[in-house]
């Protein structure tokens, strides 16, 4: 019976001009989105490669210079784009792409795309993730909404019942008739993307496993949507009402709830404003060790301690340049302050994430959204990971420079300069994004909720359609 229904439904769908049109439109949109994203992706990556290279050249060719001047002069860490960003841009538009690494300060990533664009950009871009997350569910809705109400309106459902049709088998046939073409469409899209990406060179590590996981995520998302719309179609008498109801659910799930979630998250766990954050850090810094300021109380304590440790009376008797040593201690202390404040920020962020997960119980869009951008390494967590790794590199760079200053120069010799070749010894900044398994582990909650949605919607669908008598009314 499942096969029969599948065959009949497929025929009906194929003969429906509107559905054919909708399918063609979605395919065209997808192609446009993929092509545009691929261009964009290529440009950004070329920029990244050249910027990284030229920044390193600037660093290497500083000439003779005091290491601390070089530390103030600083360098930049650039954030690369990862292959699956082609499919899901995630929050990339809103996160900065470069971080200035300098002495004493941890800087925020700057130069995000969105802040250079007009308000129009806030509507979103025509990217594959937009189609995958918003348009495809709409397509499902258009195909499925009258799948059962139609039979009720025409009275064919009574005929089917009198033929002894079993409810859930009939439904499963209908389910497959929608699912299979979608599966095929998605499969082709992902395979094509996979082939494009694996044929490109030096665009990060592309893994088929990540692509497959992403594919599965969307398949589950669509299965949930098919179930939801079928449940509505089974419970409601008229096609018009089924359409309005499914559309309302789509709007609620995909548009309204994410916004409400974002409002609640912000209201309950607000971020400090940029200036507040900076002021809090400045306050802590003022009270602590200042690498530049020998009169600071903490500095004086350090001085005493070092003199005692080495058993000498004056700083000039130390086997190293105390100025460099103090600078490094100050740097470590400041790094701790930053660590503390950023940890607070991260706590707010994970609290906010919890709000999103809580609301995911009412919107399957949310776990899919988060899972998808996490797999594509375009989510906020990846950005944090990048920023942290840039900070680690900054701390290491400062240590590298301060130690050189401390070990090579004499106390009081501020005019001492390092060799022009010295800068090349600094290891390059290399960032490895979180792996797939790390990402999945990080998203266990979302995965769990998504599976609950899948299972739950199947169970509800099964019970509402177990017997056609329930559906008929």
């Amino acid at each position, binding site marked *: 019976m499942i096969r029969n229904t599948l065959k009949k439904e497929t025929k009906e769908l194929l003969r429906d001009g509107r559905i054919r049109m909708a399918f063609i439109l979605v395919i065209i949109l997808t192609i446009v989105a993929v092509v545009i994203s691929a261009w964009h992706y290529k440009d950004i990556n070329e920029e990244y490669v050249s910027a990284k290279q030229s920044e390193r050249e600037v660093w290497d060719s500083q000439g003779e210079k005091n290491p601390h001047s070089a530390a103030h002069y600083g360098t930049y860490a650039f954030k690369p784009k990862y292959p699956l960003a082609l499919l899901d841009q995630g929050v990339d538009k809103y996160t900065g792409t470069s971080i200035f690494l300098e002495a004493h300060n941890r800087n925020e990533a700057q130069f995000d795309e*969105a802040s250079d664009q007009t308000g*129009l950009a806030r509507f979103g871009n025509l990217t594959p993730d*937009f189609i995958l997350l918003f348009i495809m569910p709409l397509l499902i809705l258009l195909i499925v909404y009258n799948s059962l109400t139609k039979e009720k309106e025409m009275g064919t459902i009574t005929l089917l019942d009198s033929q002894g049709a079993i409810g859930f088998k009939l439904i499963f046939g209908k389910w497959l008739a929608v699912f299979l073409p979608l599966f095929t469409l998605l499969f082709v899209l992902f395979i094509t993307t996979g082939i494009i990406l694996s044929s490109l060179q030096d665009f990060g590590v592309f893994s088929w496993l990540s692509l497959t996981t992403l594919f599965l995520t969307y398949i589950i998302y669509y299965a949930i949507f098919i179930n939801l719309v079928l449940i509505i179609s089974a419970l409601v008498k008229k096609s018009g009402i089924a359409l309005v109801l499914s559309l309302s659910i789509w709007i609620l799930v995909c548009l309204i709830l994410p916004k409400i979630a974002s409002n609640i998250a912000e209201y309950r766990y607000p971020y400090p404003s940029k200036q507040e954050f900076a002021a809090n850090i400045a306050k802590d810094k003022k009270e602590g060790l200042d690498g530049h300021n020998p009169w600071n109380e903490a500095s004086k304590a350090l001085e005493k301690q070092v003199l005692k440790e080495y058993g000498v009376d004056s700083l000039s008797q130390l086997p190293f340049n105390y100025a460099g040593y103090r600078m490094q201690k100050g740097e470590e202390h400041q790094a701790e302050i930053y660590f503390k404040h950023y940890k607070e920020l991260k706590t707010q962020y994970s609290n906010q994430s919890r709000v999103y997960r809580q609301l995911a119980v009412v919107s399957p869009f949310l776990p899919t959204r988060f899972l998808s951008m996490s797999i594509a390494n375009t989510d906020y967590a990846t950005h944090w990971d990048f920023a942290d790794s840039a900070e680690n590199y900054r701390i290491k760079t400062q240590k590298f420079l301060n130690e050189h200053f401390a070990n090579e120069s004499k106390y009081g010799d501020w005019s001492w300069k390092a060799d022009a070749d010295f800068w090349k010894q600094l290891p390059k900044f290399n960032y490895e994004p979180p792996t797939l398994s790390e990402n999945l582990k990080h998203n266990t909650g979302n995965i769990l909720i998504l599976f609950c949605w899948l299972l739950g919607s199947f169970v509800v669908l099964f019970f509402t359609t177990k017997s056609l008598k329930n559906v008929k009314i």
Partner: protein
Amino acid sequence: MLKYNFKYEWLLLIRKRWIQVLTILLFILFGFAVYNGTQKVDARNASISSAINEFKMEEKKMLVQFDSIEKGFKVNTSSWLLPTRPIVIGNLHPRVVNMPAKSTAFISTGQSDMFAHYVQPIVTGDDSTMNFKEMTSPVQLLFGSFDLTFVTVYLLPLLIIAFSFNILASERESGSLKLLASQPINIRTWVLQKLGLRFFWLVIAIIITLSLVFIVFGFDFKTSLTSFMALLSIIITYTLFWFVLAFATNIWIKSSAKNAITLIGFWILFVLLSPSLINQISNTLYPIPSRILMLNEMRSIKAEATKKQDEILDNFLRDHPEYATNDSTQVRGFYQKYMATQQLIQDELKPLLSEFDSQINNQHKLVNASIWLSPALIVQNSLNRIAGTSTEDYQDFKRQSLTFSKEWRNFFKPMMFKDEKFKKSDYKNLPKFEFSYANVNTYGKTLGLVILSSLILFLVLVLKPRKNQIELIS
């Protein structure tokens, strides 16, 4: 006919509970949106005023110190933190250069979640790297906020569609159309009247619920009446546009299911697709110049400049003899050197930065012109302007605060170069900042929407002339 349509449309809408449901729904949506908007505005104002309080506290302490110093008392502060040093005032007591929320800011989050609402420029600061970006979770930026703009642009059209998609088709499907058509009336006019009446009642519902919500949240109608009128007129014309579209589909398309799907198609096109498409196309055709490449160039220029730091200082003093001191030793402190280099670096960066800015401005102009392709964009843009949270407003703020930053620096520069002391009497001469919003006029856009709607109406009337009403019936 109008009189009877008016009377019975009202009866039908009340009996089918349309009016009640719509009013309650609008009240909830508007209420929640305004609530969210007010939350944001409150947070924004709170952060500004806490910064100002902090500043005032520091200022008070500093003024007390000043008094003691001028009376000749000894002050318990390290010498380099004394307020008599211009650098202390210029760097440690920066003004809170802020952008207070407009009284209408709660209407639209706009770009307010992305940009900072105050900066504190300091004398030794670098304007080219001054950061105007707010610290917000990018997830929040991605999802956006449930504000009045969202309700208007996204949800209102859907309510209108639900309210108007089957005016004619339902009569046809239920069978009452035949009886109607046998009356001496014109069906097209009849549809127009029915839709006109529904438009009328919806507008009334919008005005009442919106005013009520605004009253509940303590909106000051007295001072911001014009903004409120501008807001209402743009919402009403947007409503008009969707009603006209509903009229066209009602006339053109026979079945109510197809009507609904067509109108939803229009909604997807105007609200979801065209903004993202226009955005994508304009970015592809007129890309924003790469910030990263700009950064590269900036770095090279800076690298060159710092290498020649000492040379620069000499050149600088040659160009600005007014800064040279009479001190014969000509010993220069760190800050004199620093300021001179900064000045020169900024001069050298200026062409690069201004080219970059003009490129961005051109791109913005093109994008702003393209809003005419979708009414949703016109409305979003207008509401952001009314709320004072549009890109233009934040650019204004950036421009004004950079100007202030320059004034601030120029105030201290001569003192610093001449090693002069800052006196308490100088304090009142310090530059002051007050942000002024540009005048906003959204009536052009409102008019544009009216013209667009009339154009569609005109097209329907021409393409589906009266005599063809036979088609409407069968």
